[in-house]
């Protein structure tokens, strides 16, 4: 027996282990001491991570398909549910496990003991995200989507003393539930057309036909998943939810859950829609490029206008997810490999930045930039997280984000979209400027207390118990390890190559379909070798960090215009953007409806009327 045939047997473990452990923890809720629950939860996460590492190792040359209940397809028709294990899904699942591990380690010092419920929910979240990454069945994707939502809603409202947390969670829950219904409608339409739920089978049954049903179904799936990914105009819930969730939950929401929405659309596109949209790539590409660009710019501008640290980071997540959509919009495997690298780099960096915010909350009882001014002057050590994080957000080499951006830039020049590096530079500059400004004000005591009255001030209570005069190692260490990993992984040889292999394998629709439906043993698809110029990306990222530094310095200097003398148009724009983010769930749902309708109409018109 070869290694891969042994490893195939453990495919179910990334879902079964966390769920089984969660069940045990819930059943023994009242009897288990806190430390025991911590240990069990961390052990389960480690087992999951180890399994996924083995899986990744075994698919380095050839992906495999795992059928639950042993129901292999018959003459091209799937009867059961399958997991498709390929390099990219394994790597994604590993990233998920790593972040969950970090969340558990961080929460070792978490406040009031409420039994094991926190652990149970996070383990459920882990199982949902792993299943979401692996599954090859459209309805199963929906089930894990909902499982992810159910755990995330509860985790988000964890601090039930704070009314803002409850409101944020409520907005999150309502918009995401409507997104889930849209996904389900899309699935129903595809099922009615093809009589299949397996993605490969749907893709094969659709072939090249792209009629109204297929387009609408794809629009519904896209919108549903992009609600989760917080893409404009569906992004409103994210800042509300992330600003108020407990820090370990923020790590998971911002670090990986949001990006899974982008992943789901990419998976659906390459497994199902690559055929129907083969003749209409131009239409889809222009639509998604526009959406991604708006999201990215909007997120960056809103990010800079915040004083609440977690809300600031949340808007930065929106901005970077927009960049991911731009990468995906190129519909090219090179760009997809870039997106994968960018997800990893951003996940690690953003998680450590949230930990940085959590440390400030632990140490000084606040995450308000102005209140914190100069208070951390003697703790430069933890400030390094913010510095390195800002470099990561700007994509400065040797960060993983730099590698990702490079691959995306390369793909962009192939299709003559040369403006994309500019967007990357802009978003990188603004978001890193915001983080650098926080560093300058909090750790160096620069700037004054008055210059940033605009942002929302949300009271936030301490989350941690115990002595507050020092920072526990379980908080600071993971943050450092992650920012260093984001730097160090870039230096591992062949990482770029491995990502390309993963992306080309995922994007090889025909091979995917025959692997799943015909049981064919096909090796990974390898990218054609070739060197690409680093120059555009180097220029873009150095612009980003230089402008970021300048902007941060300017905003902390006395030269920064006071609120009342800000130029009128800018004030109007900012005011308008702010009032859009009203915190009113009715507005959010109205925008969701408008967005879904607009995307449907634009895509339909582009394809039907203009023949793109």
């Amino acid at each position, binding site marked *: 027996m070869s290694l891969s045939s042994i490893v195939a047997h453990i495919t179910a473990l990334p879902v079964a282990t966390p769920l089984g452990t969660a069940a045990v923890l819930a059943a023994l809720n009242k009897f288990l001491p806190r430390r025991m629950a911590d240990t069990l939860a961390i052990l389960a996460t480690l087992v999951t991570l180890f399994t996924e590492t083995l899986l990744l190792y075994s698919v380095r040359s050839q992906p495999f398909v795992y059928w639950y209940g042993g129901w292999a397809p018959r003459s091209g028709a799937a009867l059961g549910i399958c997991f498709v294990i390929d390099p990219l899904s394994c790597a994604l699942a590993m990233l998920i496990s790593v972040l969950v591990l970090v969340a558990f380690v961080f929460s070792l010092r978490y406040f009031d003991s409420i039994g094991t419920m926190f652990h149970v929910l996070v383990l459920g979240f882990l199982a949902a995200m792993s299943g979401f990454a692996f599954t090859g069945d459209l309805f199963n994707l929906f089930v894990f989507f909902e*499982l992810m939502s159910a755990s995330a809603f509860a985790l988000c409202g964890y601090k*039930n003393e704070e009314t803002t947390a409850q409101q944020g969670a409520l907005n999150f829950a309502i918009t995401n539930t409507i997104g889930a219904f849209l996904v389900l409608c899309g699935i129903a339409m595809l099922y009615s057309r093809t009589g299949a739920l397996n993605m490969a089978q749907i893709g094969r049954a659709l072939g090249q036909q792209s009629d109204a049903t297929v387009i609408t179904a794809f629009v519904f799936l896209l919108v549903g998943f992009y609600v989760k990914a917080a893409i404009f105009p569906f992004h409103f819930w994210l800042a509300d939810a992330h600003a108020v969730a407990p820090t370990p939950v923020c790590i998971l929401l911002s670090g990986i859950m949001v990006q899974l929405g982008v992943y789901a659309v990419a998976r659906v596109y390459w497994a199902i829609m690559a055929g129907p949209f083969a003749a209409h790539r131009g239409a889809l590409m222009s639509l998604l490029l526009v959406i991604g660009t708006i999201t990215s710019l909007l997120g960056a501008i809103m990010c800079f206008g915040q004083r609440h640290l977690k809300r600031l980071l949340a808007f930065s997540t929106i901005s970077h997810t927009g960049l991911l959509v731009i990468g995906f919009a190129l519909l090219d495997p090179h760009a997809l490999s870039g997106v994968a690298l960018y997800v990893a780099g951003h996940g690690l960096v953003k998680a450590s930045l949230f930990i940085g915010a959590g440390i400030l909350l632990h140490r000084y009882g606040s995450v308000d930039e102005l209140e914190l001014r100069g208070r951390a002057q003697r703790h430069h050590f933890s400030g390094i997280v913010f510095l390195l994080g800002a470099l990561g957000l700007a994509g400065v080499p040797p960060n993983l984000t730099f590698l990702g951006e490079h691959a995306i830039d390369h793909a962009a020049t192939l299709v003559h979209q040369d403006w994309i590096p500019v967007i990357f530079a802009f978003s990188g500059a603004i978001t890193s400027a915001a983080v650098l400004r926080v560093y300058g004000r909090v750790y160096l005591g620069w700037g004054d207390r008055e210059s940033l009255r605009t942002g929302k001030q949300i009271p936030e209570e301490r989350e941690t118990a115990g002595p507050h005069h020092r920072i526990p190692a379980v908080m600071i260490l993971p943050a450092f390890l992650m920012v260093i990993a984001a730097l160090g992984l870039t230096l591992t040889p062949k990482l770029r190559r491995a990502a390309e292999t993963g992306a080309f394998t995922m994007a090889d629709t025909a091979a995917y379909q025959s692997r799943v439906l015909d049981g064919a043993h096909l090796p990974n698809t390898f990218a054609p070798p070739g060197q690409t110029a680093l120059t555009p990306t180097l220029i873009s990222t150095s612009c980003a960090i230089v402008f970021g530094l300048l902007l941060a310095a300017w905003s902390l200097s006395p030269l920064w215009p006071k609120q009342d003398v800000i130029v009128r148009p800018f004030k109007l724009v900012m005011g308008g953007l702010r009032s859009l983010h009203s915190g009113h769930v009715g507005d959010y749902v109205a925008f969701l409806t408008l967005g879904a309708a607009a995307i449907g109409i634009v895509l339909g018109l582009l394809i039907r009327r203009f023949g793109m």
Partner: protein
Amino acid sequence: MNPRFRRYFFLISVVAFFGVFAWGLHDLPPFGHYRGPYGDILNHVAVYERHATDVVTAVNFDYRGFDTLGEESILFMSVIGTSLLLRPQKKETDNNDGKADNSLQRDLDESERRRAPAASDAARVLTLALVGPLIVFGWYIVTHGQLTPGGGFQGGVILATPPLLVYLAGDLKTFKRITRQEWVEAIEGAGIFGFVLVGLLGLFVGGAFLQNLLPLGQTGSVISAGTVALLNIATGLAVSGGFVQLIYVFLEQTLEVKLRVQGGK
């Protein structure tokens, strides 16, 4: 946005959205002409392969059993989530000392007592008499899932109703005793764990997670369809535990005073 503007803004959007939806629907196969193949294949093979006469149950617990594991986990997570969200806040538990608060408490108890009339004896007897049949019926639905409509989920919900009846009969003490959190949580966890365990046994015995590992039995008998029956029972446990806890958590919200007073004596 003010409410008026929001309404008009939404109405315009939703008309467009309806248009997109309808445009997508008009290309669907006409109503009443299901074309298959997924459902038709299963309708043909499920009875022979699984010895289950209810194909829906065979799909839920065998062909697409993994979905059901996810579905039960959704229920499980949201029950845990609900009890997490509705756990007593600090300020609610802290205000029991001090004279003023005590008289406040008395006031609240008084209004509570005025609102909830005691159940009459006849109503109590009738309600409690339903408990036994309901348990039998719920169990029947759970165990006959593979034969007739119904199964672990529907039966599980029915099995969750007797504690509610006990409460309706006005017997708070018994209600509290049979809905002890430890037990309810244990039943719920056992259900989910049982599901995972059956799946893992399938992995070790049969070769794939959730693979059938029992003899299929005689088509049409209660003990048939292999693991389907086991998974039905596990689901029944998880669902009944989950719903009892859900009802308990919500009831507790309205009855905080009552339970606190009775528990204190």
